[in-house]
């Protein structure tokens, strides 16, 4: 599948990601924040597609946008937000936050300047057709141990959730 108007879509999707990111932290209404977050995640999925990583893009949509964000919204709706909405959004840590942001920005600039040599400009080879297969091979081959550890952790989380919820049943 040949991408069309690559540059336009790159800047469009990146811009969308950034703008939604800003909206996520500035909106007073948590549902609006969640909505912005969803748009951000979808834009990211688009970026993955442009990187010839359709499987990651699909998983991004199905897990983050379709699964986790639904649970976010679920919790937001169930918890009473009347009080938290009236509170100050930006608390006293904004100085630290600003410092962290500046530090991160400087880091990015340094990486961009110095890293030009490390990451030479070239067009990625489209390995799209075997992409999914390669991910599978990687996960169940090279990174088998890490994969299983992660799944074990998730299993613990599931059992913990069941135990906690069981009290109510």
């Amino acid at each position: 599948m040949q991408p069309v108007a690559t540059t336009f879509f790159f800047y469009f999707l990146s811009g969308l990601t950034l703008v939604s990111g800003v909206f996520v932290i500035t909106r007073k209404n948590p549902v609006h924040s969640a909505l912005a977050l969803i748009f951000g995640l979808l834009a990211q999925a688009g970026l993955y597609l442009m990187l010839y990583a359709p499987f990651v893009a699909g998983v991004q949509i199905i897990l983050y946008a379709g699964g986790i964000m639904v649970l976010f919204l679920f919790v937001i709706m169930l918890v009473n937000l009347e009080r938290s909405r009236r509170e100050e959004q930006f608390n006293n840590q904004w100085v630290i936050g600003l410092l962290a942001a500046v530090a991160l920005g400087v880091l990015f600039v340094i990486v961009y300047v110095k890293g030009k040599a490390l990451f030479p400009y070239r067009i990625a080879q489209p390995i799209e057709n075997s992409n999914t297969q390669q991910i599978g091979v990687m996960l169940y081959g090279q990174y088998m141990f890490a994969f299983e550890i992660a799944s074990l952790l998730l299993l613990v989380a599931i059992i913990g959730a069941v135990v906690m919820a069981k009290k109510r049943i």
Partner: protein
Amino acid sequence: MLDYITSYLSSNTTPGQAGNVFWAFVYIMIVFGGISVAVMAMNWLERKALAHFQIRLGPMRVGPHGLLQPIADAIKLMTKEDIIPAEADKFVFWIAPLIILCASFAVYIVVPFGPTHAITDLNIGILFMLGVSSLSVLGIVMAGWASNSHYPLIGALRSSAQMVSYEVAMGMAVVSAVLMTSLHGLGPYGVGVGTSGTGTLSMIGIVQAQQEQHVWFLFKFFPLGFIAFGIFAIAMVAETNRAPFDLPEAESELTAGFHTEYSGLRWSLFMLGEYAAMIAVSSIAVTLWLGGWYRPFPNALTGETWDLVFSLFPGLTFLGLAVIALVGVRRMPKHPYFRVQTIGLAGFGAVLAFIGLILFVPPVRDRIQDIFWFVAKVGGFMYLYIWYRATFPRYRFDQLMKVGWKVLLPIGIGVLILTAVLGVVL
């Protein structure tokens, strides 16, 4: 420019894969228009079929046999006063139906109506479909929350829990079908050659795998494919919030569930989204288990003659519909009051007959066959939806969860494991 347009015609792939923006746009327009028309037709058919289940006549007034009813409804809904509740969150209230609509229509990007009749062929096609169709739950949740009213909120809570739960069972069934693309199988189910040992997630690839293995996945590893299909067929009804799983909009309990506060155009967008989603999930089922666009018995009844016989079906179907319409014309009351309706019905029959005749022309016949079989299979599912609605009472919420988590999910996992084991053993 003209070359750019014509160059695609000689290729034998989808416009998306060929990278032809013009034809991709044309296909998108055709699919979008086609689905909208199909939703309207489905609206009429559902009311008519449901009415006949229930010894009623259904719409009879607007046009002959109520044929123009969907158009009248559409006009009514569009011209209705648009109400937004005073304390609603206006932005979210406004965007929720759009999310549902976009999610349901975006799915059609990868639906293969034929080997080249798809907008594009993503190599993660089925994953994309599941992912995008799962986005519609966001719209429902937002609609319920933004209405700022209790019934929609409960409807939204119900639907988010329901759709997330059934997605899991649905995923299991889908994975077992995807697994089958890479497995040969022996004996009566799954003879054939051609699989490289690597499966595919592409919608077109899945259908072609069924062709290569000479079996619909419905019958592969019998009864495993059948059970997986059954799980999907149940879960897809729950996913689309249709009876008997229509709890999010349970009329007798929650008035109208998440869209209680919606009216007019916005409400019609919900309906459009719902019906489009119904067609979309049916398309997934057809693609995964019923051989997609292939005609019945492409391997058993081969040869020129059979090809010809089956290629006549689209035309014959339309001619049959035309005959029904013309019989309807004869049975119309012979009273001046009904003259316009009679002429209308006769005209409708004539149009159907004309389409039928066009479909007999060889070049058209060959191009249209795939689409016809695909649509016919999807149509069967649409009828099932209506049938369920006429027959079943509604599940209660805890029972719904029980069915999803305690019945469908374990069976789904079992089928998945058995499929893998059988595929390796055989």
